[in-house]
């Protein structure tokens, strides 16, 4: 796996009239990397991706794809990307094969290699057996796969996927995620989503964008570190007094949750799990649950997107939580 930079974005900004949708965003993607692009609705994810894919001109800043400037040499730059927009650009009246052949031709795949390119893309996206069916008659999941096949048919170094798993069933979501991971081995992949576990499942690198600004740009390991907040969630049938727990070595504070669970915050180096387990046995507190209280990505996300305008983020929060639990 080499690590040459595929996409370099510098000081990108974009106005819609007076509204600035993207503010001074800079980042880069290397080969063999899956970049997760996270943000609440309307944060500027899609705008950024449309700019990188050449569908939208930036108001300022530069985009370089595999060494070609998107504005100065759009043709060379665009031949290096495959793009799946939010809504897959499918011609419903064509069959899958016809459509993929057309996409291959549009992307300058030589005539002699088109059949092979098409078969290859179909193979990778699990489209065998639907080649002769009309796209309009396929299920949403299959249409989404055709959309991805379209984006990778010319084996571009950079693949941009805008919310690729929206509207799919859980099995399909798993397959698509596996496919994205697979793509990430050879290509550079940019993946936008507002489904947080998706990022944890597929990405190497995470970026959170809020109101057009990048608020986090972190590798997934760095993020893990972010999330390993020192806390435990415990639940007892006969809970001891809160002070008993607070006095344990290493425990900083104890916060009761509404559902009867207790949230124990401790020093990072001194994990009180063993002590709590022992005491629970000795005093028959009836311990029935204990787990490390990792800060979920959701919490990191909320923390980061909240401080700009607290009430605004509050409005988003229930929606995101609802999405997670669904």
């Amino acid at each position: 796996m080499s690590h040459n930079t595929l996409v370099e974005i510098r000081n990108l900004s974009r106005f819609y009239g007076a509204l600035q949708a993207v503010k001074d965003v800079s980042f880069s993607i290397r080969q063999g990397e899956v970049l997760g692009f996270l943000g609440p609705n309307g944060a500027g994810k899609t705008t950024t991706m449309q700019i990188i894919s050449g569908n939208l001109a930036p108001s300022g800043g530069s985009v370089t794809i595999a060494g070609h400037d998107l504005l100065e040499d759009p043709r060379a730059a665009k031949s290096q990307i495959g793009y799946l927009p939010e809504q897959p650009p499918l011609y419903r009246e064509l069959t899958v094969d016809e459509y993929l052949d057309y996409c291959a031709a549009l992307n300058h795949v030589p005539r002699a290699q088109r059949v092979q390119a098409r078969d290859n893309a179909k193979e990778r996206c699990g489209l065998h057996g639907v080649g002769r069916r009309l796209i309009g008659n396929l299920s949403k999941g299959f249409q989404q796969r055709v959309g991805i096949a379209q984006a990778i048919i010319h084996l571009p170094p950079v693949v941009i996927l805008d919310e690729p798993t929206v509207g799919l069933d859980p099995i399909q979501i798993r397959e698509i995620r596996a496919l994205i991971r697979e793509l990430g081995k050879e290509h550079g992949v940019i993946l936008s989503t507002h489904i947080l576990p998706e990022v944890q499942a597929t990405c190497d690198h995470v970026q959170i964008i809020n109101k057009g600004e990048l608020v986090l740009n972190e590798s997934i390991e760095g993020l893990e570190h972010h999330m390993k907040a020192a806390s435990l969630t415990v639940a007892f049938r006969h809970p001891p007094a809160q002070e008993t727990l607070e006095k344990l070595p290493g425990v900083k504070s104890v916060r009761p949750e509404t559902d009867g669970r207790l949230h124990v915050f401790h020093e990072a180096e001194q994990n009180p799990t063993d002590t709590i387990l022992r005491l629970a046995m000795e005093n028959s507190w009836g311990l029935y649950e204990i787990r490390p209280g990792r800060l979920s990505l959701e919490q990191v996300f909320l923390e980061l997107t909240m401080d700009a305008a607290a009430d605004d983020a509050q409005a988003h929060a229930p929606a995101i939580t609802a999405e997670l639990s669904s």
Partner: protein
Amino acid sequence: MILTVALREFKSLFLSPLAWSILAVVQLILGFLFLSRLEVFQLYQPQLMAMDSAPGLTEIVLPDLLGNAAVILLLIVPLLTMRLVAEERRNRTLALLFSAPLSMTEIVLGKYLGILLFLLVLLGMIALMPLSLLAGASLDLGLMASGFLGLALLLAGFAAVGLFMSTLTQYTTVAAISSFGALLLFWILDWSGQGTAGGNWLAYLSLFNHYKPFLEGVFDSADAAYHVLLIVTFLVLSIRRLDADRLGG
């Protein structure tokens, strides 16, 4: 690359019943008009024989047929061009073309060429009718060539205007209505200012006035230039409009 887009456009036309029904309807109506004109010719043939330098078969049948064809196609072409860009915009498939390594010019020319191919088929089918007379009569092939060249240029102009109107909107019906309106306006411009000296330039802009000479067998390069200018103008406008899509969002 232009050809790829054009062929796709051309084939897609035939995937919907629209192209077939247009071909059928146009052929039916023009066939009827053609036959009725032929009947007129047969009716007056004895008198014509007696006249000196009487108009021939081609002169009686063809200008009338092509004149009617132009009016009918004025109604039909907007229906063909309306979906070119408007439908893609509505279905969000434009992103496929925009993110492919294609310039706006290639996209516009490709789509335009696709429609031209279809119009060529239509033209060929119309031409078959007078050509069928060759079986039993002799035709003025020069007049025919000039007439069909005029019709071809006219249709190319219709298509360019229709393409531009289609880039303006995402509603196919709006595109159809506005290109129909624009074409009709171009057609009837010469109705205004007739007789007054100042109104003549309006009449000069009229499509009809640049079509009529072709039907009379007069090939004036100024007329051809008018059509070419019209086509180029609207194609450039279409390219500009699609570019603005990217800039404006």
